[in-house]
């Protein structure tokens, strides 16, 4: 069976999953089986089919599993958001349509994605600008002490979601050039390979950038995601573990320094360490959120309460969980689907990451390899940062769970990321003569 037919076939179970999810919620809400769930399933299948056709016509050789995996993730997100709030789910569905258009457009207009290499500095500048936008007075928004949102009139979006892609493109292009010098110029000192001082500069600049983000955006999670993505690329480009280890050490030192000086970061760490401390719990923006997240997960147990059956609201209608449709959506999923469902979701992400890295391995040229690696690594780290935050592995920060959390910026950016991965994949898998 050809790659495209496999893709098409794999979209069917995703649509069935969505139909079943909606059916479960309808039964729970009104006690009757409603054929609306079938309609939603059909619409979803139709949208998936449209996406599939776009891939079929532009990138016929691309990896057949990435898109269906995204469809499964989207289905998790839509069902859970619908269960929380019907209006939000409608908006989310609209964002998916816009996302699919952007996805198709990216595939059509960036068929030769290697032109991105030429505009690396433009892309880097755009990326940095995006990251700093939330601090611009008048349009920047502060949420829970972190600067992650931008409001331009009626439109509000999270520029960091797009910024991550720009930064990865820049790093892939930059490291393609300098990787040789970084390897050859390295010296060994006390048994540790030290990169040449001259080329150590850019590394320091990126480290400084990550630290600046910590100060400016005040978000440990995002800077961890960006810096982690950078280290992953540096490691793959040079195959020197010591570089990555040194980098991690530097990040740890910087993070420790800011954790003990910047009040907001300090608070986040305190709430992470002891979420049940009465003082921290009652403080605005304190540990209430993470504590409630853990309670929701405990309520889920091994198999969960079932779709639509978790207790998420007080009798007054007030939500127990803060931000259940964005930051804490993983906690809602665990609550309703249990450890089993959470493992399933993580497995889907892991499969996506596996396909991403497989694309990197298959790619012929360094830029493609580094681009696929970087995009996949940043994607995986984003999942780790938010799920890790919700499960108290690391301090909780406000990044979205890709394709699942509610949010236009997140969906659009991740569809661009998916399109780029498919572009690399198509090129890598294209038979020799047509390349």
């Amino acid at each position, binding site marked *: 069976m050809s790659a495209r037919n496999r893709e098409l076939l794999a979209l069917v179970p995703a649509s069935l999953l969505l139909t079943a999810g909606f059916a479960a919620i309808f039964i729970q809400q009104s006690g009757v089986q409603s054929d609306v769930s079938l309609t939603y399933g059909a619409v979803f299948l139709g949208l998936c089919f449209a996406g599939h056709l776009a891939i079929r016509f532009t990138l016929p050789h691309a990896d057949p599993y990435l898109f269906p995996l995204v469809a499964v993730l989207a289905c998790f997100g839509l069902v859970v958001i619908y269960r929380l709030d019907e209006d939000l789910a409608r908006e989310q569905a609209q964002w998916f349509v816009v996302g699919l258009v952007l996805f198709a457009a990216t595939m059509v207009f960036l068929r030769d994605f290697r032109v991105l290499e030429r505009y690396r500095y433009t892309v880097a500048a755009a990326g940095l600008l995006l990251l700093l936008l939330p601090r611009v007075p008048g349009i920047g928004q502060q949420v829970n002490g972190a600067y992650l949102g931008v409001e331009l009139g009626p439109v509000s979006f999270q520029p960091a979601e797009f910024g991550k892609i720009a930064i990865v493109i820049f790093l892939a292009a930059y490291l393609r050039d300098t990787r040789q010098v970084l390897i050859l110029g390295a010296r060994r000192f006390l048994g540790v390979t030290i990169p040449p001082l001259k080329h150590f500069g850019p590394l320091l600049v990126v480290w400084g950038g990550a630290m600046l983000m910590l100060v400016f955006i005040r978000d440990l999670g995002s800077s961890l995601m960006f810096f982690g993505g950078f280290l992953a690329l540096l490691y793959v480009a040079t195959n020197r573990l010591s570089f990555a280890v040194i980098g991690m050490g530097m990040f740890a030192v910087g993070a420790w320094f800011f954790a003990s000086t910047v009040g907001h970061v300090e608070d986040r760490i305190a709430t992470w360490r002891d979420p049940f401390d009465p003082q921290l719990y009652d403080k605005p923006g304190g540990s209430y959120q993470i504590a409630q997240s*853990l*309670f929701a997960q405990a*309520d889920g147990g091994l198999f969960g309460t079932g779709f639509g059956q978790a207790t998420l609201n007080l*009798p007054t209608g007030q939500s127990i969980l803060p931000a259940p449709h964005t930051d804490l959506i993983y906690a809602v999923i*665990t609550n309703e689907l249990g450890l089993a469902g959470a493992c399933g979701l993580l497995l889907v992400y892991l499969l996506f990451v596996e396909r991403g890295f497989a694309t990197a391995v298959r790619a012929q040229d*360094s830029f493609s390899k580094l681009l696929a690696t970087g995009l996949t690594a940043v994607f995986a780290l984003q999942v780790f940062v938010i799920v890790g935050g919700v*499960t108290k592995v690391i301090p909780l920060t406000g990044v979205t769970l890709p394709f699942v959390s509610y949010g236009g910026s997140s969906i659009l950016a991740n569809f661009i990321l998916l399109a780029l991965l498919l572009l690399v994949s198509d090129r890598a898998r294209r038979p020799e003569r047509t390349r």
Partner: protein
Amino acid sequence: MNAPVLRLYGLVIVLFAVLIGFTSRWTVFEAEQLRDNPRNARTILEEQEIRRGAIRSADGRLLARSVRGPGETYVRRYPTGELFAHAVGYAYIDLGRAGLERSRNDELTGRRTELVTAVESILGRSQEGYDVRTTLDAGAQQTAIAALAGRKGAVVALDVHTGAVRVLASTPAYDPNRLQEDFRRLTTDDANAPLLNRATQNGYPPGSTMKVVTAAAALDSGRYEPGSVVDGNNGKIVSGVPLNNFGGQSFGAIDLTTALTNSVNTVWAEVGLEVGRRRMQAYMERFGFYAKPPMDYPEDQMSASGVRKRGRLTPVTRREVDLGRVAIGQGDLFATPLQMAEVAATIANGGRRMKPYLMSRAIDADGRTVEEAEPEVAARVVSRGTAEELTAMMKQVVREGTGTAAALGGVEVAGKTGTAELNLSGLNQPWFIGFTSDVAVAVTLERVQGGTGGTVAAPIAKAVLEALGSRQ
């Protein structure tokens, strides 16, 4: 460049395994604790739809019950109001739970194993809570609260043979029915701290009541007998500072019985020093100091008694502890009324300390007893002989010493007074601990101007012993 990509993938797998590990931790391994966390409104919300069992006193008075609230829910009512506020506690969605409502939540909600619950839900049976019958005596509790007469203080009474808690009173209290309206005021009223359970949660300098512990250690270790003679002059140097007797009185060389009857500080400080740090620590631990009481009451509503230096429990084996003054209930020693009641009950019970308990039975909707408390020995503290010698000495205290105000007609009471001086201008912490053959009691009042254990606390103890005695 392919090998590092694969290793990177390996790293991602490890990271995701950590995520699954932590998710398992919250959903399975630590789920029980999280569900029981008083902050977890979810548990209470779900349990709101369960008809919680009623709580009754030992003599059948209704202390808490559930009535139909809005929709499918139930709300709690406390017919006795302030009377049992601290012992029974409360259960509200927004405020969480406290007291027995918290420690016996499993019984009150009828929680069984998950399998049984699953089977019952298939059979369409709704979960019903069990009624909890407490060991508390409503009459005696009322007597205790009345005798405290609005002053800040606490009374604890224990059945000496079983450890059953007969009275657990703390004033000022609060009305659990009005808690939602009053909560903010109650939590910010630092001067009165009405939510604080003074019987279990707050330590006070036990003063001379501690001499019972010192005497028990002295007699039980075989170094002293009731007739041993010790110098009881005023102003003996203890830890480099002269120690005074009450009223600055010098007694000369006297025996231990006389020294307990007249509560002679200089004698008992010397005895404590003679017994030694290590032995004193060992006996205090056997009496239950340095640990939270093993009672069916929420852990964080009880505190451990012992010497506290800079707010931390410090064993008397440490050099910084003034052992001589600890032996007479000072020197940064803090004890809860519950702890001192256990001391009295242990002596009354022939030297065996019983685990104190508040729930005697859990009864299901059909009237069957599903759970029953079994009296349990917490520790063998002193020998029967020591306990008998000490009982005789303590009877002397009530017969002709500082504790005559606790004497009952017809029943002989053993006891010990205490008056910890909090400052030089006469602000005191009066105490009385004592027992009959059946009931042990501890009484203390907070910061009383001028009153002593014998004049202020002993009459309260007498009233409570009388109230419990009439029901024997």
